[in-house]
Every structure is written in structure tokens, then in C-alpha cells.
């Protein structure tokens, strides 16, 4: 499956929040968490109909 790379810029405070979320067991690492967030956000905002 084709992959595309997106570059996201995060500062230390943003990374801290994501890393604490990872540490809580939500995802195995920061990148996995970002991808999880994208999927979960998509589920939360699924198109109707």
C-alpha cells in the first residue's frame, strides 16, 4: 500500500503531552499515537449518510 510522508512540527510541550499519553498506554509510541489520533478523530467525525 502506497505511503505518503507528512511532516508535522511539534514543540516540546506538544511532544510532552503526546509522550505522556503514550506512557499511559494509549499507543506504543509517538508516531503510532499520531496515526491513532487521526483514525479516532475520523471515527468521531464520520460523514453521515
Amino acid at each position, binding site marked *: *500500500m502506497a505511503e505518503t*510522508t507528512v511532516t508535522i512540527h*511539534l514543540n*516540546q510541550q*506538544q511532544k510532552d503531552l503526546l509522550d505522556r*499519553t503514550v506512557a499511559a498506554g494509549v499507543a506504543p509510541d509517538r508516531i503510532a499515537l499520531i496515526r491513532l489520533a487521526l483514525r479516532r478523530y475520523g471515527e468521531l467525525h464520520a460523514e453521515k449518510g
Partner: protein
Amino acid sequence: MRTLIKEFVLEPGTGKALELRKGQILRLEQIEGGQCLDFNCFNLDDYKEFFHCGRTRTLHGIHPTRGDFLWSAPPRERAMMYILADTAGANDVMFPRCSANLYESVYGYDAHTNCQDIQAEAQREYGLTPDDVHDSFNLFMCTGVDENGRTYITRQASKPGDHVELLALMDVLAVPNICGADVMRTSNFAIRPAKVQIFAASEEDLAAVPPLRSWRTQRTVADFKVKAIRTERKLARDPDYRPEFVNTPIAYEAIEIALDAEEQALLGRLARREQYGDRDGEALRDIVFSWWEETRPIG
């Protein structure tokens, strides 16, 4: 069972500074109806901690009512009082207190009753200055925001017997005053007295307060780099000052995220293009933190 400690009538044009101990209730009651009251409060042990409309508005909206708290200003941010009762349901934390300048600049008065000066005169009993008066919790005041985003005040419908009860969650100096506005709609173009009572709360009253969590960031003077209260009015630079802003410098790191086709499609659907255009990284960052805000995956 509540115990009545004090009762009096607050006369038009006046206010009163009242010491309330933790666990005491201030009840402000309409006598004739239709009267706005302004309210300030301070930590009795440290007047620099005081009620903050902005913090309260953020947590409870523009019309705080029964079940809401009155919060102190940052960096303290503690619950100072709890609204035990509110029978009229018309309170406001948007509008500032009215002032002498308002009545001069709009109406041409040399002198007119106004909440700033009434508060200042009442607070003077405790050595506070006019600069210590802060924006009020406006009780019995009907306000709103119109379709153009402009705030407005309109007439009110409070009746005799309508009341607000504020339970002190710390020792406070509580300062209610009769709003001085008789040439505005605020109190239906009149100034009327109001009944003031202080009670010792009952067990039932105390049990009504939801549990409050303590936070490390509810700062006290012990946390301040400068602990002393200034006595000089003129400001002068501290030559030894070295900035110590938290978490600075803010530094961004570029992180590459490989998205599969399904995730690319998701990003394409969810990206706020009107905000970020074709900048996928910024759009993805927005999605990540929006998800976090909406779901708060950790407490």
C-alpha cells in the same frame, strides 16, 4: 439546621463589607424585586486573592447560577464560594461594574451612585483602595449577547423573595452593594433596598457542595518569586532581573509521519483546508490535538 448570624437591609446607594468564615452563607434577597446587586469578594487572609469574572465565566458561562462556583483570579484559581441557591436565575459575569465616569460621560452627572464608588466606599472599612475594586459578580442582572456579538443589558423580572445564596469555601471579605443604575434598564429604572442575611450553614448545605480537586498549579504566595506587596506607586526596572519564562525557548521539531492510503484519505477529508490550505502537517497537528481535546485520553 441553619443558624442566622446577622440580618440587615442594604439601603439604596450603599454596600457593606462583611467577614464570612468558611461554612457561612451570604443570602441576598429581593425586598421589592427588580434590583441588581454587585458583588466583590476577597480572601480574608490575603486580599490579593479575589473573585475573578473571567475564570468563572470560562468554567460556568456568562450566567453563573445554582451549582456553580465563584473562582479566584489566576494564578490562585481556587473556588472561593459556591452558589447554593438562585431563584431568579439572572446573574452576569460579562459586564464591568458601573462607574462615575459612565454617568458623567453618557448622562452628564457631576455625581451619581455607581458600583465602583459604592464598592470602594464599602471596602474602605478594611483599608482597601478604589484600585482594589474588581469586576463584580452581577446578581439579578439580565444580560445577553445579540446576533452581532454585542453584549446587552435588559430589564429584569426578579420578584420579592427571590434570592441568591453564596456559601463561603474559605474565609472571605464579601462585599455586596446595591447597583447604582437608576437611569438604565438594569434595575428597571429604580434603586431599591435588598435584604442581607448571614447564616452558619447546615450539614445539608455543606453536603451540597460537589467535591473539589486540588491542583499543584493553584498557586500561593509561597510560589511567587516576588512575595512582597508593592508599596511604591511608581514603577522602576529591577536591574538584576533575568527572565525565567517557563519552558522557553519554545523549539519545534520536524517529525515525519508515514501515512497509508486510508490515513491519507482521512487526512484529506478532515483537514481544515480553509485554515491551513495545502499544509498537511499543520492540518494533521490540528487533528491530533483536537482529538486530544475532545477525548482527553489521559486525565
